[in-house]
């Protein structure tokens, strides 16, 4: 389990380029920050109102009011800057975030995403996710490939959508998939799995890239 999350986070980290402003969702996406390659300087945006977020502080060194969008204490990198929520989402909606990484309940081959509610069951709310997915230049869904054996990568989402046709890349422990005009293309495969394994775990129609690369982390 932890190994799966680590694989996903490490692979996502390779998508990020020097100077990118990146928003990492709560949970698995947060781990991505631990695996940024040497020499790559990314700037983390936190939608509660700042850029230049650093890692968690040492115990006892927490600063009041210095928390991330999950309410957890963080630190600051040199050059950090704070702003109000309207400016925070001007950054997000205005295309100033190079990439947003977030989880999904479902994602489909058209790039639709559902990650904010299960009617009659779980309605946590969309928070900033709808704006992030609409506004970020690149939307990366980072998640385990299936949920308790059930496919999450579908022909068409059945849950209420977060956004329509905004997902660019799906990264799971099994591989890397891109949403393209021709459909959902499997670009890379984790050598621990076969194409048949992935097809079996995916409801969406997968187009297999040729050549199909190994997913290295």
């Amino acid at each position: 389990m932890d190994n799966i999350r680590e694989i996903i986070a490490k692979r996502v980290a390779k998508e990020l380029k020097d100077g990118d402003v990146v928003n990492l969702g709560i949970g698995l996406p947060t781990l991505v920050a631990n695996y940024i390659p040497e020499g790559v300087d990314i700037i983390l945006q936190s939608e509660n109102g700042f850029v230049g977020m650093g890692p968690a502080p040492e115990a006892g060194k927490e600063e009041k009011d210095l928390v991330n969008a999950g309410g957890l204490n963080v630190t600051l990198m040199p050059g950090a800057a704070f702003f109000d929520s309207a400016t925070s989402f001007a950054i997000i909606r205005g295309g100033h975030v190079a990439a947003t990484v977030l989880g999904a309940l479902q994602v489909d081959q058209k790039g639709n995403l559902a990650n904010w509610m299960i009617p009659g069951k779980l309605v946590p709310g969309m928070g900033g996710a709808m704006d992030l997915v609409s506004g970020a230049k690149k939307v990366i869904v980072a998640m385990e490939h299936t949920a308790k054996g059930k496919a999450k990568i579908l022909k068409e989402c059945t849950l209420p959508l977060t956004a329509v046709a905004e997902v660019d890349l799906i990264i799971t422990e099994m591989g890397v998939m891109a949403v393209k005009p021709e459909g959902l293309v499997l670009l890379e495969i984790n050598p621990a799995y076969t194409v048949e394994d992935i097809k079996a775990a995916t409801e969406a129609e997968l187009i297999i890239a040729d050549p199909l690369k190994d997913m290295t982390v």
Partner: protein
Amino acid sequence: MHKIKTIEEAMGHIKDGMTLMIGGFLGTGTPETFIDALIERGVKDLTVIGNDTGFPDKGIGRLIVNKQVKKAIVSHIGTNPETGRQMNAGEIEVVLVPQGTLAEQVRAGGAGLGGILTPTGLGTIVEEGKQKVVVQGKTYLVEEPIRADVALLKGAKVDKKGNIYYNYAARNFNPLMAMAADLVIVEAETLVETGEIHPNEVMTPGIFVDMIVEGGK
């Protein structure tokens, strides 16, 4: 124009059934002393506008737990299970709004705008019942302005004219709400003399602030 009030004087203006904007993001930047006072006074049937419903023991969430809220307009409720429980039981109405849209709606309410056009929520249930406008060939949702009877804010430093300086991520919705309510009351962590906040560094001009209560946490 003497703006400094006791908490009793200030909170005495808040009546059953009023609409309140309350600053903060998961409790960071929320005027907890005002929440204490509202709980003590037992005002009820409140409509609350804020980023989220905090936690059961922190931020706006405490008013929910104490059953003083009849309607909440927020971007998420996931961190406070009691909000979800009351919603499912039909005890409270919850309107979920994308965070960036909520920020702009509050800003529009304070800025005399009739609303803003946003791509966020297009093709999702958020668009239900809303006007759409096509601009430069793209479709946008019309999101309407929001105002409140009272805005409750928290500032790190507040001078005697009501100028506010926020600390780190405690800024969030506070400066937006300062513009969008008929009565604006700020909790001052530290009350300073007029002039101690440099005019360049004022984050909320005192002209928006009606009352200052010393002694935020």
